[in-house]
């Protein structure tokens, strides 16, 4: 075990964990954050997607070592069930979930796109979202939710 400091959702957390621990397990088990999900541990499905310095990464493959000074954001940073952020609200408005297991990862990947390109074209959205899998077939609604926000604009959630 060694001491590792993670900057998550605007706060610094010093944890005594194995440095090779993937970020996913630190977020879930040591910081109590549910947003990032275990899906494959292989970077193939995107259920664990979080933002690292504003870029989407697979937290299941990202070791905690090397996170010093880097900014990590999870879906919890965008808002809460009571006060959802714009993209979360769009997912609620379009009822863009079936089982919902992939949704937090979908939101974080879409958030990264919208922060960089507030009005992405259809092809750009499809290509950007390709790394994330949904098994229920909710893709059409996920796209609709993203389009909602790309029309209204999304605020950088810091």
């Amino acid at each position: 075990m060694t001491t590792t400091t993670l900057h998550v959702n605007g706060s610094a957390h010093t944890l005594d964990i194995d440095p090779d621990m993937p970020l996913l397990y630190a977020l879930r088990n040591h910081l109590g954050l549910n947003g990032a999900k275990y899906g494959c541990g292989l970077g193939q499905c995107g259920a664990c997607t979080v933002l690292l310095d504003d870029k989407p990464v697979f937290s299941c493959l990202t070791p905690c070592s090397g996170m010093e000074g880097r900014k990590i954001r999870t879906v919890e940073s965008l808002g809460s069930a009571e006060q959802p952020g714009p993209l979360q609200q769009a997912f609620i408005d379009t009822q863009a979930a079936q089982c919902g297991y992939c949704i937090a990862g979908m939101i974080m990947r879409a958030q990264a796109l919208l922060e960089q390109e507030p009005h992405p074209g259809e092809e750009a959205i499809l290509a950007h979202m390709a790394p994330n899998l949904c098994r229920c077939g909710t893709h059409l609604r996920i796209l609709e939710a993203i389009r909602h926000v790309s029309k209204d604009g999304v605020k950088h959630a810091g």
Partner: protein
Amino acid sequence: MPASTEKGFSRRAFLQGGALLMVFTLVPASRRVLADTEVDTLGTVVLAPDLPGSLRTNPYLDAWIKIGSDGITVYTGKVELGTGVKTALLQIAAERLEVSPGSIRFLTADTALTPNEGYTAGSHSIFDSGTALFNAAAQVRQLLLESAGRTWRLDPSILKTHDAVIQAPSGQKMTYADAVAGVELHQYAKADSPLMPISDFKLIGHSLPRLDIPAKVSGGAAFIQDIRLPGMLHARVIRPPRPSASLERFDSELIRSMPGVLEVVHDGNYLAVVAHDEWQAIKAMRKGYELAQWNGGDPVPESSTIHELLTRLPAKRYPISHEGGSLKGSGARFQARVTKQYLMHGSIGPSCSVAWFKEGLLTVWTHTQGVYPLRAGIAEMLGLPLEKVRCIHTEGSGCYGHNGADDAAADAALIAMRLPGQPIRVQWMREQENLWEPYSSAMLTQLDAGLDGQGRLEDWSYELWTTPHNERIVNAGRLIPARLLAYPFVSAPSIPIAQPEGDGDRNAVPLYTVGSTRIDMNFVTDMPFRTSAMRSLGAHINIYAIEACIDELARQSGSDPVAFRLTHLTDPRARAVIEQTRDAFGWPQRPATPGTGIGFAFARYKNIMGYCAIAVQVYVHPQTQVIEVERVVTAVDVGQIVNPDGLRNQVEGGIVQSMSWTLYEAVSYNAEGVRSYDWSGYPILRFPQLPSHVDVHMLDQPGQPFLGAAEIVQGPMAAALGNAVADATGRRRLNLPLGRAVEEA
């Protein structure tokens, strides 16, 4: 007169509901269809055959609804699998109690609290539980009115309710909680419920937003994976390289000495590790995989010869439909051999469970589809009395059928018994889910059908080979961990779900009017791979085969395929979804672009549930043969719609999921083993492959029975794709998945 299979099944199932449909009692329909379904595979006993829906098996009103000073609690034995059924069931209960949905505490399957409704499967939830709640809630409200009437010496029919308060014309008020003091809710429901004009529905037929979505978009504790109990430990299992392999050597002590490791469970071929921290458990598991030496195991067949193998393995032959004479049609004929490979449920979140053995009681949190059957299986495995095991459903990732949920729960239970007092969380890894979940069976079907001289369907011969689609938990031996123990349990014999629901033969009988049928199922009990229920069971390939045949016979006889279908269907609701789809699509218009094709398909799920017609337009790239789905138009009829947006969501999902199965999916394996241990070895649809346009039409049937929605699309979508690809390329592809093989009939 030609034998009509449609009539035969209606008589057995649904037709008798017709006379009573207007009053929405749903009694006859529910009574007939519930017998012998995948839902009540185990543990449900019919106590009151004349009651509607699941009141048959759980007739007491207080099994469903309790009212006290703490408010109204409504119970269902069904579970939320990600279809939105919890919200829809709440709508029904609130509608008939005439209270706001927010005033109800709504609990789903828990063996300590809720009715036993068997499995949440087969698109039965609204049909069974919704129907029960529709009636029970109205009857409870009526009893409360009568209680108030007795107190006030007023005729209950002049009383009204608003927000769980009963009001007399004089202005007197009594809460439901006060009124319940004068009522015994522990009584059998009655066959007849108070009527409610459809025009008074405020919730049924309206799109109440899903209850669970806000937590799921914001990192709330929404899934079983999110459970954190005090002192909870993390476990991982170590599975053999293949079924029936035996453990030759294993060094428990080396693993025990790893950081954080508290326990190594070694019982016969069963291995698991327990650690304080999840990452430590994963590292111990990986070490365990490295150290364990295995011998033998079941051979893995070659995928290229699996369909031929199915015809040689021990099987029981079940006649499915033998109607009419042996006359062969003198007109056009179509013969085909249609195949599909093994498919995976492919839940995005691998199976997970938490178990806690505390003070003699084992509590298991599980995303199983059936808490009661699972409880019985776990109790048998552990030698515990039933009442010492409690299974509580907690949402997992979508399962689409019998995935690893039950086995993971058995893992957690086994491990928790070794560490009394400590909650144990077991999370399967991706490769464990892919290698150990029960697959959807590879299947082979052979079809031979002909038209008479007037171009009508004369003879229909269909034979199919399948392994089981319903290996649910009827004994401990159906749980993988129980099979691995030093004293292993053996799986109960496989039995197919009977018609009209069907198993591998689900929807094997065409709904079209046919002169004669010879339809048989070869139920292969010696499984090359363990298989069980996945959405629509055999209907996916059976509808694919039937609709390919209809398409070919229409083409050969110079008929438009949609007109040909209508000629052979008498059910007005079947015709309505077809006509709606035809008109909304603008059938048979299509772009003149070479490589573009259109396809149409129709089915009524199980021939007794929801109706679905679909038209699709595809573009097949001439060089690469890559299939792009440009447009999908569908019309569905699931009876009375409870939540229109929820239905639309299910239909959209069915379109996308079935498209993925049909175009891309097959478990990859050969004698060396299964290659599909991750998503690269089992590719599914990704965003860029989505259909460009999807148009869903819902034909509501106010006052008609609920028919269920979650699986109605799988078969028709597959078939419409097949027909469109044939139209685009001039070549009929009969081996699924379509996107991989190019073969001719």
